[in-house]
């Protein structure tokens, strides 16, 4: 006979009792393990999705907004490096003349080398008009293999689309393709460089074909790299070792006649970062030519000419001085000293044209020879410089062709855009310098093209000109592993179930020990020390907990499987993908067993401490202590109740119901009601009655143990309150949606286009372009720098969300949106205008939704985000303000001025807030039909984000209800114990003539009254706390959920109280009398 043997014997003998304890432990293990596995599964699935969306891609090289030679990819390849170029553009597809449309497509121009990255065999070997689409796109369009699509794609070019004077016509191209294959995610059909779990809409065409359609030659903007043992600097070195000027959109040419070599850019203007470095070198100098509308002296005018700014080494002029050529002098009948007015367009970021004028004094007239007839001073402006005639000009500014005379045509024919006038470089830069540059060429004396080219290439690192190398695989896997913590989330959502299961095990342990009280007393009498008794029972508990925990493993895996199915279907909103797979880590199983085991055994130890210390004699005594008068229960209870009601009526109901106040009221009302209940029970305990009745005896028998009854009342009322008040409390984000302070900013629509809109939609010219002249719509336009989706729709942790640049005055005028957090840098009166000023240390102020800052980025207001601008310099954004839930969720907002300063090449806007009547939606869809418009009411966009929170609350409601149901099992146990301990009393009733049925009915009724009161005490405050939500038309239906849960819990409570009642009164009650 030893302790282990004793434990095993006891376990086997009391197996029925043990089973319920094991059940409680098993349930706890199951819930915890289920939550762990959910978390692991989501993380694992996100990682799998990352690997599937990247295929065999390890690294990605991009040029920012820059296009470079596709050949560069093969030049940097080696035996260890597999490389393939891609051309990426946004697109939209139309099927059968509009039967179906798909916007926001990712269009990939690929070469056959992509097969190696996709892990396929010749699948991506595409003929001219063949396309491979992914399943997601096929599903959206309802298209099959062999069918034709009309594809519209953003036309890429080596120059930014909004370069001044470049035409905005043909900003998109369209062509037909035939679907060759529909690829699955295993075939890298979901190829995506953004870290997001939802499937993109992909279409793959031949790179050559796409280049041809875009009239680009052989260019790309993305290079995929596969190879081990690489790092960023090694790849950058390879690029630097192999790149050519073409890759920087630069070229060098020599002018033999004038003996100089010059560097020009495809981008028309030399980028400031490029010019800055090159002009540091000796011998180089910039020139700057600009297209002006008119040169006029008195009533003589010459239209549409180039004026060149030259450095002081070539031309020494004052700020207001100008030199004109002989042709112009003759045309204007000008003489030195005359005042000449120059009119020109200043072109804004959205092609806003402001016509400006300035005057100069003619300082001299030069002959039409030598450097004054240098046609190279005219920059290469597509559509302008390559036109054969003035009438063929395709400029991005309005040209009055009627003002062009024959002599102007003749000038163009002979001299093209040779400048007719010259000013100082400084003057030219001051007047016409723009975000794209302050020079149109950089020159040096002599014919040194080859050397200059080498010098230029040596001057720059790829990162200086916007090339970026990213380890997308590593970054993606990290983003996946640091994504939303579903383990923690589901532990939180399931906490009530977990608590109920542990409580069940605890109650069972109490019951178990209670049944064996006399055994404990006997052991004590035999000389077992308290420590020894604890040890004996602890051995038993170890077995029970171990068995329970092990049993909980398959139950937990089954529970997890159910939850995963639900997440992949009815709760799909929280993950936005249906490809989550179960992933079980052995460590998760061990952790769950250990945690539940430790909690259970610690609880067992504490319970045993109390029992083992009690002497047998005190266990024989049942003393019900006196409860006092209950006056404090009454005072505090009544106080809390009145306060809650007063609070609700005084603060909660006014012009609009204040949800927070209602929640606090409900929270205060519940303990108030519990305390009042306690007072009632105390009064019942202490009262004396003259008229004794069956009801009196009945209540005395059932309700005599006030402490136990208050435990029942508290558990049930608190339980139902917590579950319902949390689960029913929803935010109606659409209430007050028309208010500027709301999450919509008071705007009607939120829209995004697949292609940038290059115009100012609030200007007559912009509205004309889209046929919106008669539309009442007003727009706030946002320029977008592509980034990861940082909204709650993305489960991955992102580091670089999309940046939106916008005109801050527009939001400031209407005091749009509400800030819930801010730093000192944000002006409380004009918060939006605070974004215009760079901060002291060069940081750029930025604003985002507070939920994105906290949960999406894992940061706080005051923290920074680091990006790389086009010049390859680090750009630090400081989060100076956090918005209340808004339509901007997932984006970072900065002022457009600072946006353009860092990303001048980003042209047009793709995100819009629209103020218009709701009826205008169709008109807008029609106007933007070629831009791939996705438009929705702004309040619907808010609801889209809130859907996720709603789904979590639904899950909480369901799991909470499950916890309550488990709690009713615990209630049954308490009732069982209570009745069993008082069996002798009920036996006496039977002995005095009561039928057993009547006795059972009496106890059942008594306890169910208690249960009903408890549930009502919990229900009323919970409904009150959630009243603002329930009043909303969106969530009114939830009240039925609440009532359904109430009824379900009541029914379950009835079942378990009935069962406990029945079991406790099983057998002959008079046996209890015999042993008493």
């Amino acid at each position: 006979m030893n302790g282990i043997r004793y434990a095993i014997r006891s376990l086997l003998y009391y197996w029925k009792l043990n089973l319920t304890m094991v059940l409680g432990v098993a349930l706890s293990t199951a819930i915890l393990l289920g939550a762990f596995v959910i978390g692991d599964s989501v993380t694992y699935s996100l990682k799998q999705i990352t690997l599937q969306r990247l295929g065999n891609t390890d690294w990605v090289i991009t040029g920012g907004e820059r296009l470079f030679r596709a050949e560069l990819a093969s030049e940097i390849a080696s035996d260890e490096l597999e490389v393939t170029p891609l051309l990426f553009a946004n697109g939209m597809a139309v099927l059968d003349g509009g039967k179906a449309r798909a916007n926001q497509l990712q269009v990939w121009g690929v070469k056959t080398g992509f097969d190696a990255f996709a892990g396929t065999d010749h699948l991506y070997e595409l003929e001219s008009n063949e396309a491979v689409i992914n399943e997601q796109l096929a599903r959206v369009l309802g298209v099959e293999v062999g069918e034709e699509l009309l594809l519209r794609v953003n036309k890429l070019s080596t120059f930014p689309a909004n370069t001044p004077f470049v035409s905005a016509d043909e900003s998109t191209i369209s062509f037909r393709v035939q679907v060759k294959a529909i690829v699955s995610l295993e075939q890298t059909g979901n190829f995506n460089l953004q870290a997001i779990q939802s499937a993109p809409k992909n279409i793959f065409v031949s790179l050559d074909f796409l280049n041809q359609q875009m009239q680009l030659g052989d260019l790309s903007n993305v290079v995929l790299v596969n190879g081990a043992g690489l790092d960023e600097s090694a790849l950058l070195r390879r690029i630097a070792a192999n790149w050519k000027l073409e890759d920087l959109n630069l070229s060098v040419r020599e002018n033999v006649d004038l003996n100089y070599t010059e560097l020009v850019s495809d981008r028309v203007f030399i980028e400031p970062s490029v010019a800055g470095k090159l002009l540091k070198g000796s011998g180089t100098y910039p020139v700057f030519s600009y297209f002006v509308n008119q040169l006029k002296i008195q009533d003589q005018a010459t239209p549409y000419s180039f004026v060149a700014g030259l450095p002081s080494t070539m031309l020494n002029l004052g700020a207001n001085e100008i030199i004109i050529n002989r042709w112009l002098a003759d045309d204007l009948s000008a003489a030195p000293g005359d005042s000449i007015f120059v009119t020109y367009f200043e072109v804004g970021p959205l092609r806003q044209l402001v016509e400006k004028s300035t005057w100069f004094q003619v300082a001299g007239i030069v002959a039409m020879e030598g450097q004054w007839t240098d046609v190279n001073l005219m920059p290469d402006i597509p559509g302008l410089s390559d036109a054969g005639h003035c009438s063929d000009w395709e400029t991005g500014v309005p040209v009055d062709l009627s003002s062009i005379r024959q002599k102007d045509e003749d000038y163009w024919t002979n001299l093209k855009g040779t400048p007719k006038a010259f000013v100082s470089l400084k003057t030219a830069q001051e007047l016409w310098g723009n975000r794209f540059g302050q020079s149109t060429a950089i020159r040096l004396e002599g014919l040194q093209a080859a050397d200059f080219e080498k010098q230029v290439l040596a001057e720059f690192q790829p990162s200086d000109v916007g090339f970026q190398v990213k380890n997308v695989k590593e970054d993606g896997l990290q983003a996946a592993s640091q994504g939303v913590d579903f383990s923690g989330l589901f532990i939180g959502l399931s906490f009530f179930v977990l608590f109920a299961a542990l409580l069940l095990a605890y109650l069972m342990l109490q019951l178990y020990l209670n049944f064996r009280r006399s055994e404990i007393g006997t052991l004590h009498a035999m000389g077992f020390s308290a420590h020894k008794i604890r040890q004996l029972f602890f051995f038993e508990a170890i077995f029970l907990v171990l068995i329970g925990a092990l049993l909980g493993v398959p139950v937990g895996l089954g529970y997890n499987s159910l939850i995963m199915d639900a997440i992949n279907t009815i709760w799909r909103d929280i993950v936005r993908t249906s490809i989550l797979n179960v992933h079980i880590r052995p460590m998760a199983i061990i952790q769950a067993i250990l945690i539940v085991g430790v909690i259970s055994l610690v609880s067992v130890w504490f319970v045993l401490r109390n029992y083992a210390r009690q002497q047998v004699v005190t266990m024989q005594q049942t003393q019900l202590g006196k409860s006092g008068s209950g006056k404090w229960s009454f005072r505090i209870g009544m106080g809390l109740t009145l306060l809650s009601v007063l609070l609700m009526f005084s603060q909660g109901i006014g012009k609009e119901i204040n949800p927070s106040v209602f929640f606090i009221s409900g929270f205060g009302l519940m303990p108030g009601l519990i305390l009042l209940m306690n007072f009632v029970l105390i009064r019942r305990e202490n009262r004396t009655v003259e008229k004794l009745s069956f009801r009196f005896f009945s209540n005395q028998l059932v309700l005599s143990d006030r402490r136990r009854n208050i435990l029942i009342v508290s558990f049930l009322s608190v339980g139902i309150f917590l579950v319902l008040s949390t689960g029913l409390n929803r935010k109606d984000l659409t209430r007050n949606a028309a208010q500027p302070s709301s999450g919509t900013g008071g705007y009607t629509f939120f829209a995004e286009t697949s292609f940038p809109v290059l115009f100012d939609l609030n200007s007559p010219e912009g509205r004309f372009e889209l046929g919106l002249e008669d539309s009442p719509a007003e727009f706030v336009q946002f320029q977008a720098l592509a980034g990861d989706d940082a909204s709650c729709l993305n489960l991955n942790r992102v580091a670089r969300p999309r940046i939106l640049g916008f005109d801050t005055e527009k939001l400031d005028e209407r005091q749009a949106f509400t800030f819930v957090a801010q730093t000192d840098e944000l002006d409380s009166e004009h918060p939006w205008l605070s974004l215009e000023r760079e901060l002291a240390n060069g940081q750029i102020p930025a604003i985002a939704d507070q939920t994105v800052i906290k949960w999406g980025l894992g940061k706080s207001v005051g923290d920074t985000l680091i990006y790389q601008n086009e010049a390859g310099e680090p750009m630090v954004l400081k989060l100076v303000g956090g918005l209340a839930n808004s339509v901007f969720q997932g984006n970072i907002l900065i002022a457009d001025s600072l946006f353009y300063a860092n990303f001048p090449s980003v042209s047009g806007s793709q995100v819009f807030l629209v103020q218009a009547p709701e009826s205008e939606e169709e008109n807008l869809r029609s106007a933007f039909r070629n831009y791939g418009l996705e438009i929705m009411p702004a309040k619907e966009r808010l609801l889209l984000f809130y859907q996720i929170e709603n789904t979590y609350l639904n899950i909480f409601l369901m799991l909470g209800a499950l916890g309550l149901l488990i709690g009713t099992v615990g209630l049954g146990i308490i009732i069982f114990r209570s009745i069993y301990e008082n069996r002798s009393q009920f036996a006496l009733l039977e002995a005095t003539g009561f039928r057993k049925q009547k006795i059972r009915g009496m106890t059942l009724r008594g306890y169910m009254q208690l249960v009903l009161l408890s549930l009502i005490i919990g229900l009323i405050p919970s409904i009150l706390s959630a009243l603002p939500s329930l009043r909303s038309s969106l969530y009114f239906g939830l009240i039925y959920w609440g009532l359904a849960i109430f009824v379900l819990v009541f029914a379950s409570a009835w079942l378990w109280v009935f069962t406990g009642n029945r079991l406790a009164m099983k057998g002959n009650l008079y046996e209890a009398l015999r042993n008493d």
Partner: protein
Amino acid sequence: MNEHATRNRLVMLEIKTLTKSFQSGSGARRVILDELNLSVKDGESVAIVGPSGSGKTTLLNMLGALDRPDSGDVLLDGEPVFGKDEKQLAEFRNQSIGFVFQLHHLLPQLNLMENILLPVVAQQSTVNAASRKRAEGLTQKLGIAELLTQRPGQLSGGECQRTAVARALINQPRILLADEPTGALDQQSSNQLADLLLQLNREENISLIVVTHSMVLASKMDKIYQLENGKLKLAEA
């Protein structure tokens, strides 16, 4: 009653001014034992009788160190019992005291032999051969040797109670405390048990203190004490 037979024996157990009171539901304190004094000699058998609620069981619990008095002490061989710490008290109960309750309180999950040997493992981890041999000897004396592999649920009340006696004696205690040991038995079983207890008292030289309502049982003891109004009075023969 056989007081003369014990006259020359040494006092083994003494109670000195033992007082115990309890708080009733109304809050008032009720004195159950009022400065009680008692001495029991080595090998002596003592019966304590009294009306219900007089505190007999309370007194027995004090003697067995299952409960603590408000004041006074119990001395074993002149050494105060209540000066010990909990570990020492457990050892005291295990080694010096044997308890027999009205209800046998055998553990239903153990067979008779295991029930008997249970006190042995209170203070040591395993049962040694000597203990096993003693158990066998006791079961022979108590007439339950054939039933050792059976469980309490399979036996009669008398057989269970005899097993409880064997359990109480397994560690060769100095004193056997019995609280209404025959209360749950029929007449024949009661008589048998009473005789057994006295036989063991003589043969094992164990002091026996019995709380009982049965005057038949009480009359067989060396002394009878009457407990009334918190005081012990030696009954006349």
